[in-house]
């Protein structure tokens, strides 16, 4: 059985470089390089593996500003079949609820086109476990609910798809262990860094990708209600952003030529001054 997949790719700012302007109290976005959300590349690799063994198609899907086509162009280099960017002013300011509304409308359209071409629709939707800017991990489950897909999050190892029974088995990471889950297709999975890192892109794919177009869809291309898009369709509002409260830099206990045992003694003296004493007695 051929498996058709959609991989959700988000372009994110390199978060290690995002800062708050101490004067204006607003986010400094300028000059911050954009990267593909790292977890989405694990998701892409997982989708590529499924295609390796079952055939079928992979469509990369992203919602973002026009520049996000750079991310999709990069993932086209891995030899995927199609890349779609959802870009429209109406999509801007979306929280995860509006994002899943918009992405799910696009996935429905992609599925419709696959069916019209004689295929079986979309069997698997792959997301990263979370984005590094929003850090929510909410989009994968949101898509599962909206599209009536089985929901398997935090996948640390995706086992093979059983074509006859239309099921997939996956190990899911929890805090207290891992669980082996069996889910019926169609399924939405979110992939963690415990899965395989993305393979090297093959040269012919890279060359083909250089010429392959990224399709750009606007709201008019989707069956959507305008009120449910972007900021308008988002129940949450950011009321304030601020720099994390800075902890004060403390004392330096080391000094030129101060021997380690003196430093250690100084530390535990200081801790004792704060009421943290060593030993079982309160003396």
């Amino acid at each position, binding site marked *: 059985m051929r498996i058709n997949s959609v991989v959700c790719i988000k372009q994110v700012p390199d*978060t*290690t470089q*995002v800062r*708050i302007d101490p004067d204006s109290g607003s986010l400094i976005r300028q000059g911050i390089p954009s990267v593909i959300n790292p977890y989405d590349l694990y998701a892409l690799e997982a989708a590529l593996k499924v295609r390796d063994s079952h055939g079928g198609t992979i469509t990369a899907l992203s919602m973002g500003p026009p520049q996000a086509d750079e991310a999709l162009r990069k993932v086209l280099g891995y030899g995927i079949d199609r890349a779609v960017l959802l870009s429209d002013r109406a999509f801007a300011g979306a*929280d*995860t*609820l509006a994002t899943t509304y918009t992405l799910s409308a696009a996935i429905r359209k992609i599925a419709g086109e696959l069916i019209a071409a004689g295929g079986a629709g979309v069997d698997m939707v792959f997301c990263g476990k979370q984005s*590094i800017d*929003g*850090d*929510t*991990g*909410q989009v994968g*489950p*949101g898509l*599962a*609910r*909206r599209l*009536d*897909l089985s*929901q398997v999050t*935090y996948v640390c190892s995706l086992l093979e798809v059983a074509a006859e029974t239309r099921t997939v088995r996956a190990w*899911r990471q929890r805090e207290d*262990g891992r*669980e*082996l*889950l069996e*889910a019926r297709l169609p399924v939405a999975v979110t992939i963690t860094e415990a899965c395989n890192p993305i393979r090297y892109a093959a040269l012919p794919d890279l060359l083909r990708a250089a010429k392959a177009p990224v399709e750009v869809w606007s709201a008019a291309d989707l069956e959507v209600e305008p009120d449910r898009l972007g900021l308008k369709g988002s*129940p*949450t*509002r*950011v*009321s*304030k*952003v601020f*720099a*994390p*409260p800075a*902890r004060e*830099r*403390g*004392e*330096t*206990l080391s000094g030129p030529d101060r*021997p*380690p*045992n003196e*430093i*250690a*003694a100084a*530390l535990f003296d*200081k*801790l004792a001054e*704060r009421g*943290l*004493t*060593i*030993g*079982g007695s309160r*003396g």
Partner: protein
Amino acid sequence: MPVGPGEVWVVIEQEGGRAEPVSWELMGEAAALARKLGARPAAVILGSAGRQLSSAAFSSGAEVAYLVEHPDLEPYTADPHCQALVELAEKFTPQIILLGATTRGRDLASAAATELETGLTADCTRLDIDTTKKLLRQTRPAFGGNVMATIITPHHLPQIATVRPGVFTAPQPVEGVSGETVVLKPHIKATATAVKQLQFVPNPDTGVTLKGAKVIVAGGRGLKAGRNFALLEELAAELGGEVGASRGAVDAGWISQHRQVGQTGQTVRPVLYFAVGISGAVQHLAGMQESDVIVAINNDPEAPIFEVADYGIVGDLFEVMPAMIGEVRQRKLAAGAAASPALLKQGGAMRMEAGTGGESE
């Protein structure tokens, strides 16, 4: 139907009658929020163990316990839990629902918030009430911890948030209090999207209890090799603490992921945190900067960890750590006590002692 303002709910994360400590941390916080709103705090227990857990919920601040019982609710999978929680929320219209930001809590919260078409704020580190607008102010780190954002859900109910374990301190259980118990059998449809759990393999490393540890001695790439973690284990053992790690050390394969502190690891708030050979990337700081006292040992004077350290030691950890261990041993000898507790806080209980009542059942 309840009258008055909607309740403040906590979804108790439990399996087989064992609740996750974060649930009680949230119950205490929910009770405080509910007081400000003049609303009732309630515990929602999905599964078959509700009766065992309801008294723990009452002693942690719940006035109501919803026991939602259905065989499909254990073991946890998203779909039946989502159906049950949505049905309950539609029936009793809470104004706030809190869940732990765990792999299960996040999984369920996202699904339920989508069905309820409402806002969800993930991974909050602070909650308070805007008393004029009666809104929940949800503060969380974003952009990998470089930015804090306060989020509100102004026009939708319920307002849903997940909160990381360890952010709030579980209340000291008050024995002998009781509350209203509501038992419900939800209508869970058997759906094609049902997921089956075939197997569960618990972590081998179950001795790791970073959450409740009063002292954490954490190591990073500066340790150079896994075997050098022995240095940290020794100091941790002397202080009655646990060993933690940066992602750098975990990725190098030197130590188990369960000991990772930070954005993608655990959030910890020990009384004393040693960062040994850890540079102090924001993602690491995100998980430990609430510690009472931070000691940093690093041979690079420019390492960002020194910005948050109360006590900075610029030096070679391979020289400093043996000296630390020696110093502690000496002091214990002098105090005439080799037994734990190794580190005591004078004048008032240590915070973590109050916090370890979490698993009371």
